[in-house]
Every structure is written in C-alpha cells, then in structure tokens.
C-alpha cells in the first residue's frame, strides 16, 4: 500500500491507501469518485482522466505516445493531465496527489 491523496470533483481532499503495483485507476475506481474507466485500463477510452499535482509530475515515468494523443483531445486537457490507468502506483511515489478531471 502507498498513500494517495485524491481531490474529488467537488474539490474535497481525501487521503487513501492505494494499491501498489497496479495503476492508480484501480484504486480510484474502487473508491467510487466517478472514474468510469470504461475500457478497464486498456488505454482505449480516456474515461479515467486525472490531473497530477505538479510537484509529482516529474517523478512519474512520462506518458507513452498513445496516452498523450488521447489526453490532448480531451476538452479538459492540461499539461499535467494523465490517464490514471497508465500511472502505476509504487512505494516510491507514496503521497502522490491527483485530482479527478471533469466528466466529458
């Protein structure tokens, strides 16, 4: 387990125990903040969009080209956008802070 700080769509901050070794999406979906994750983590749907706190952005491996392409076409795209199914949670990023992006 690693700490994960999640800011929900109402701006409320939650500290949760995230599962290590799987994507952040798995934790978010179980915790029910409206992350649809329709394709189940196949990087095919862009319905698991989050913003990563700037302080953490550089500590994560950079997104692959297909993830970037999906992100850039979302209306809520920001430079710190990620697909949560493509971000692995590891002990090394315990305390990772993310916000759930608006539904589109």
């Amino acid at each position, binding site marked *: 387990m690693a700490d994960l700080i999640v800011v929900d769509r109402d701006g409320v901050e939650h500290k949760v125990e995230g599962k290590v070794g799987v994507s952040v999406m798995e934790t978010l979906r179980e915790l029910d903040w409206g992350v649809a994750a329709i*394709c189940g983590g196949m990087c*095919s*749907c862009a319905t698991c969009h989050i913003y990563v706190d700037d302080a953490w952005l550089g500590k994560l491996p950079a997104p692959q080209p297909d993830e970037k392409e999906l992100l850039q076409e979302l209306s809520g795209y920001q430079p710190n956008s990620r697909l949560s199914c493509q971000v692995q949670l590891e002990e090394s990023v315990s305390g990772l802070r993310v916000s759930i992006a608006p539904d589109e």
Partner: protein
Amino acid sequence: MEGNVVIVGASHAAAQAVDSLRREGFSGRLVLVGDEPELPYQRPPLSKKYLAGEFDPARLWIRPASFYEQQRCEVRLGRRAVAIDRERQSLALDDGSVLPYDALLLATGGRVRPATVPGAQLAGIHYLRTRADVDGIRADLAPGRRAVIVGAGYIGLECAASCAKLGLSVTVLEMAPRVMSRVVAPEMSAFYQAEHASHGVDLRLNTTVAAFEGGPRVSGVVCSDGSRFPADLVIVGIGIVPNVELAAEAGIACDNGIAVDEFCRTSDPKVYAIGDCCSHPSPHYRRRIRLESVDNAFEQAKTAAANICGREVRHDKIPWFWSDQYDHKLQIVGLSQDYDRVVLRGDPATRSFSCCYLKGRELVALDAVNQPRDFMVAKKVIAERVPLDLGRLGDPAVSLKEAGLPA
C-alpha cells in the same frame, strides 16, 4: 426517490445502474438479481488478456463487494428472475421469492448463439460469454494443440490472437468472404486478415461449418465444401441473442431486443431496459439500433437511473467500441452501416491508419488502428456533423480537426 427498484442481470449495465441510482438520489430498497454466481465483472478482457493468462483475475470485478454494501444494494447471485407480474408490480425468482418494485430495470444482456449442426454437443466445443466459459477454454489450452475458431467477428478474432500468442495452432472458419464483414469496410478486413496470417493463423473464408466430428470429445470440423479440419478444441463465436424472454412473456414490446424509447423506458412505463438486451432509437442516426458495447451499457444505465429518479434525460450518444488483437489497438466510433464512401487516412502498411466512413461529406463512423487521436477527434466530428473536405481528410498530414470545409 423512495420505494423499490429491482435490477435483473448483474453485469456491466447493472453495476453502473447501482452507482447511478444512488447518485441520482434513490434512497429506497435496491435489489440486484443475477443468474451468474459472481458479482459483475468485466467481459472485454475475457477474449483478450484474461484468455491469454495475462490478466489478474482479481481485477475482473467492476466494483468490489464492499461497493454494493456501501450502496445498500441487496445482491442475489445465482438467482434467475422467472416472471414479471406487471399488474402487481412484482418479480418472481426461481427460488419462489417475489420482489415488489416501483421501477424494474432489465439488464439481461445476451446469450451466445448456439451452433446447430450435427455434433454441436460434443465435449471440447466452447463458447465465450462468461468467465466460466473462458475458464473452461483455458483448461483446454496448451501449446501445440489445434484450436478451430468458428466465426471471424471481434470475439473470434480476439480469441484467435490470444490462442496464437499461447502457441496453439489456430484455424478460423468464416462463412463470409472477409473478416468482421458486418462491421468494417473491406480495407479493414484486408488489414486484419494479413495480420492474422502473419501470426500463423490459418484463416478460411467462404467456409461454412457442416458438422463436428468425434466422440465424446470433438476431433474435427467438417465444412460444407467437404474440407476437414482436425481440432483439439473448438471455440464458436457467431454472435449473441438478446435475452428478451422475461419481458416478452410479460407482454412488453420487443423489436430486435426489448424495445425502449430514448428514456430507456419499455412499453410499460414502470419497466426500463438497458444494455445489450434492448433496442433503442438513435436520434443521431435516426433509426432503431441495438448495441453490444460496454460504453452503451454504461451510458444507458446513467440515463435510466436519471429517468427512474424523475430527472428526464434522453439517451443520444455516438457509440464507440474497441478491440485488441496482437499489438494493435482498434478503436471504433460511430455506426458504419449506412455510408457511400470510404476514405483512408494513412497507409495500412505502416500499421497506423484510420478508415473513415462517409455519407456525402459527413463522417458517420471511423475505425482507428493505432491512431488514438483520430478516434478522439472523430467523436466530435461525427456528433457535430462537420462537413468535410474529402481531399484533406485523405491526407494524414492534415489533422482530422482541420479537415472540415471552411464555414
């Protein structure tokens, strides 16, 4: 809203309905009835990574068990709904219990279409819809075994790719002259045929199965042209039949599925239907359609939940779907049933291209192969009916966003 809501079927559509009903403020008794022994799980990985043994089974659940507790949802698994009494507004289950409802939500999905040729009952002949089905298939998989797959739709081809990856010798038998012929253009079929061939899959088109041979286990497949294919196992993927009987026997109107309006309501205003089991009007395509996709199950669940709770919401979405075969990401948006021309963006030889389906200058559907940006942009271009410049559309150096005719 208070009272009783009962959901029949426990899969993609139902899991989302539980979530959406509570979000819309339903505070009454919520019961979920499903005839499979498990909580709702994801079906798409079944023919993909789960079949190939690359998917952690614990990740199959759509929501953990704690979710249903938190949502105060009574879950009745391994139970079949057998009859709807519309006058009394109650639902009878196969254990004799009766559940009253103020709103009934049918999410009964579909069942596999069975092969009816001689020998279809032999052991070793599999179908693929449920987790139990795949676990049965997996028990029969071993490198070097001969798998014959009947049907070259998405599921058949995904199975072929997964079996080839595992080192089986794979033959696919398809009645039509090309693969995925119901849903994609010939250009797309050609690409996927070549990909399967390059992975050693023996694809036989224009080939109709006449019988299965062997006993008690299947040992081969005989085709109507007399050709024979030895088999250690067979997987039949020839489509699904919507589960309409529960509704039909109660006198609810059906039309290629349980017929609903744009509010997901059936001919009985207390009964709603969502997901693979229902047909619904598509305002965008101006006709009645029945879809088999996770996204549709998800969106209709949200729509039905809102309407049950008294918030009028219309279902008007552009459908989309994905399929993974080998390393190729196929993303499909829109319906490609009514088009007059196809324009390719990019060269299939590069394995990254899109196939655009047009009616006049309007994009009605797009298949993106390893081309996620086109998929995302196409959703908007289709929904907004943007008139396109076909020359620019065919130039992959011009982004799809820039391919609109000047206003």
